[in-house]
């Protein structure tokens, strides 16, 4: 799915993680059920640097495994986090997507927090944040594939789970109107100062 950075020597079988999902499996193997974890962390992808891509960036993923968890629980968790980050009152929606270890999978969009969907209406001012789409994709999510649970020694008939993940820099850029992701790694204190950092 991603362009991966491999660890020398060739054939070592080791890679710099391209997402924080391995942490979820480690948690499933070592922690007792029911399990509710988030794993923020640095991830690596072999990508060219531009205004929206860095080869090293941060993700946060969540995993919940419990008895009787459904997609409704997942929607609730996602809505709660959108409310916390962007303020209450923004709708979220799920659309079908594909991820290797969740079934079904979805991508999460939230109503544009700048135009609140107004820019879609005929004759309305265009919105640069959502490109007048009215919705912004912010995360991927899905119900943990039962075979993943089996591989971790968990009875999929008794337990179910959901997982989600999103990019930290992207969330930060959206929440604070940052247009270039490279600002986060330039090391310019004037950037940090805008976030209340006294330097």
């Amino acid at each position: 799915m991603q362009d991966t950075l491999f660890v020398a020597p060739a054939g070592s079988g080791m890679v710099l993680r391209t997402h924080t999902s391995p942490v979820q499996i480690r948690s499933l193997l070592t922690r007792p059920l029911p399990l509710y974890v988030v794993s923020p962390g640095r991830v690596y992808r072999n990508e060219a640097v531009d205004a929206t891509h860095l080869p090293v960036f941060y993700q946060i993923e969540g995993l919940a495994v419990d008895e009787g968890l459904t997609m409704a629980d997942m929607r609730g968790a996602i809505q709660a986090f959108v409310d916390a980050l962007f303020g209450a009152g923004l709708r979220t929606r799920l659309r079908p997507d594909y991820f290797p270890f969740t079934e079904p999978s979805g991508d999460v969009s939230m109503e544009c927090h700048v135009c609140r969907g107004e820019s879609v209406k005929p004759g309305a001012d265009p919105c640069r944040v959502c490109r007048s789409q009215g919705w912004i994709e912010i995360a991927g999510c899905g119900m943990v594939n039962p075979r993943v649970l089996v591989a971790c020694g968990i009875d999929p008939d008794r337990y179910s789970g959901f997982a989600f993940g999103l990019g930290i820099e992207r969330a930060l850029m959206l929440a604070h109107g940052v247009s270039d992701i490279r600002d986060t790694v330039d090391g310019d204190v004037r950037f940090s100062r805008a976030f209340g950092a006294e330097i």
Partner: protein
Amino acid sequence: MSAPNKSYDPVAVTALSAEQVDRALDAALTAITAATTLDELKEARLAHSGDRAPLTLASAEIGALPPEARADAGRRTGAAKARIKEALARRQEDLEKERDESVLVTEKVDVTLPFDRTPEGARHPVTMTVDRLADVFVAMGYEVADGPEVEAEW
């Protein structure tokens, strides 16, 4: 200003007499020398070379003189004004030099003194966002998990 005098002659314009011009010149030079600051010099300039200065007003009266007296009066007032101008410029230069030198002393800053404001540093905005998001989920009962950044390929 008086109208040109063509009808009668001579006319005594006291402001243009040699003694009056000399007196105005002396007063101006004295004031300029006496000025010890740039502000005082500015006052002296206004008083002795401005629009209401005696010599300025006097030259405006030249037209009232009989034609044959005008050249001589013009020369005398012109020379006096030139001397005042020169004296002003010289004094201005001296006072500015003096001020610049005193500023160097009074506004001296010792840049080798220890710096009294040590920047405390701060967490990176990305780190703050990570913490904020993690806090949201911790509030919902989630735990925070960490793992290695180098993983098996499969």
